[in-house]
């Protein structure tokens, strides 16, 4: 535009910079993708706990998608956002159509309307495109051709990033990173629904509540953490694959898996936000040759595809995991594999082993009121 006036920069004095956002304490999670069976128990555990109100129908703070796939929102990896050389990178705001979900089904018609033999149970098309995609729309499609087809599951939630670009994009200062656990939270009393956070988040894990005109996302189950209970997605996982703990607890599994053994990697590290959700990348069977003999040099999941998700360090991780497997197969022992097996369920949860049933009051029933005095001092 040529006719814009030049304004002052007074408000820019209180801008949040990338480096100012890191906290000394950070709750992190590690998902072992070799154990995820795509059952969506984590998704449901989160859904029934946090997003049951009007305006939250399409919100799935926890999702499990099949890889390779377009995921949710549809083709989210092409939507931009994140950091580019310490500058925020413009992004696309996912639409309702791209998120999909929040469906209402024709239960009345099929079950009670006398059309049980002529009408199929299906989502009602509300004309907004949301029945054309969903949180696990492309489940189990994967890639490759028989007999070398492949896929694996990728659970995703807010990464509670060390450098959360969503916070820096919010004009009203509604978002902050909590100093005691690094949870990225939003004061919904301040949020004005401008949705720049949704654009800036490169993982597209922020949703919009149309009924309340506020953005919303995973809160790391902070009311549970405060009373020693692990996040619902982790505690309800039947596969024992979700580790929770403080990243700087050198005796905890998070520190060992991420920093000591270096076998857990963040998703799309190139986005620059410093995710605090990490993944043990998936091993896969070897490819079969045309004569059905085994090609022991080539895993079925292409290493270059894993690199596109987890960065170049994934190759060293895969080598280490295979080496540990070889050690055990030859009669040796492996602390890494013993940790990943998780012989004792509570070992997953670090300091968060309290049984919520043992509490007088369930943590999720505590009002989610945000005490602004507890914010980390990253905004002047």
């Amino acid at each position, binding site marked *: 535009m040529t006719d814009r006036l030049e304004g002052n920069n*007074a*408000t*820019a004095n209180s801008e949040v910079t990338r480096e100012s956002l890191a906290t000394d304490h950070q709750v992190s999670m590690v998902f072992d993708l070799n154990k995820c069976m795509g059952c969506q128990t984590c998704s449901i555990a989160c859904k029934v706990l946090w997003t049951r109100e009007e305006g939250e129908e399409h919100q799935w703070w926890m999702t499990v998608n099949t890889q390779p796939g377009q995921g949710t929102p549809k083709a989210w990896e092409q939507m931009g956002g994140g950091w580019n050389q310490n500058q925020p990178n413009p992004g*696309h705001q996912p639409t*309702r159509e791209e998120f999909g979900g929040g469906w209402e089904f024709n239960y009345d018609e099929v079950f009670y309307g006398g059309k049980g033999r002529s009408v199929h149970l299906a989502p009602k098309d509300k004309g907004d495109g949301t029945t054309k995609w969903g949180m696990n729309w492309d489940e189990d499609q994967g890639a490759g051709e028989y007999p070398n087809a492949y896929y694996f599951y990728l659970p995703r939630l807010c990464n509670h990033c060390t450098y959360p670009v969503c916070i820096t994009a919010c004009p*009203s200062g509604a978002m902050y990173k909590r100093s005691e656990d690094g949870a990225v939270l939003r004061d919904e009393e301040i949020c004005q629904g*401008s949705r720049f956070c949704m654009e800036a988040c490169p993982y597209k894990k922020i949703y919009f509540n149309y*009924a309340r*005109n506020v953005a919303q996302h995973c809160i790391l189950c902070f009311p549970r953490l405060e009373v020693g209970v692990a996040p619902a997605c982790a505690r309800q996982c039947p596969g024992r694959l979700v580790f929770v703990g403080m990243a700087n607890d050198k005796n905890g599994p998070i520190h060992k898996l991420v920093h000591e053994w270096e076998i857990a990697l963040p998703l799309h590290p190139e986005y620059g936000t410093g995710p605090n959700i990490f993944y043990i990348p998936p091993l896969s069977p070897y490819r079969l040759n045309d004569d059905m003999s085994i090609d022991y040099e080539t895993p079925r999941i292409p290493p270059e595809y894993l690199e596109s998700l987890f960065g170049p360090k994934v190759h060293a991780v895969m080598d280490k995991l295979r080496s540990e497997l070889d050690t055990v197969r030859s009669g040796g022992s492996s602390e890494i594999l013993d940790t990943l097996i998780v012989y004792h369920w509570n070992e997953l949860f670090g300091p968060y082993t309290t049984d919520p049933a043992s509490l007088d009051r369930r943590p999720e029933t505590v009002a989610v009121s945000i005490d602004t005095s507890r914010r980390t001092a990253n905004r002047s």
Partner: protein
Amino acid sequence: MNVSEIKGSTNNLLELDWSGIDTEQVALVPIPITSQPNAYIRTKWADREYGLTRSAQLSLARSGNKILARLEWDKVDGNASEKEDGFDGEFTDAAAIFFPLDFVANGQGDQPGAAPLTIGTHQAPVRLWYWRDQLPIQRDLPPIKELYASGPGVFRPNLNESVRSNKDVATTASLSVQALKSDNHWTVVISGEYEGANNIEKMGIAIWDGSNQERAGIGSVSPQWIGLEQTGRL
């Protein structure tokens, strides 16, 4: 512009008798990109057109301690290229009137006061009465609310600490609004109680075109204060 007492009942805002009340055509400009509150917004909107609404008609009156403002403007069609980008029209049109608070923060009394062009500054926030057209699902939300603005889009329900500790701020209450859109022409009438309504000397207005994804600091604003001459004071 002159501000005088309006005649008759103020119960139905769209049916007020505005005869004898001053009306002014106010020129609007895009809120400057250089003043946007963070690098994300400055980068995202650097090369995109916004502030599509370039003028609005303002009528202003008093009724006791109430201020009554009528805004009218023609809505401009949104940016076609953005619609191709997949945007599905989820931002709604909005408008606001705002008034300077009569002080600046931290005892910096010699600094210039609030700037209308940026809808306030950190040191000198403004009182913002913000109306937004609502989606059907937003039926339970108030259609208008009072906010404190300390920059483009830096809208909060409370004053920031440094300002709040500086001086008590007179509160307002009983905000109400009625709006009508007809043939792409908006008429929005805002009513609010304001302690000292007959002493207000200046105000500003801002408008956001929702179909162009305008919100927060991305919108149109009156670049200078609109001077008010109170007539027929009680």
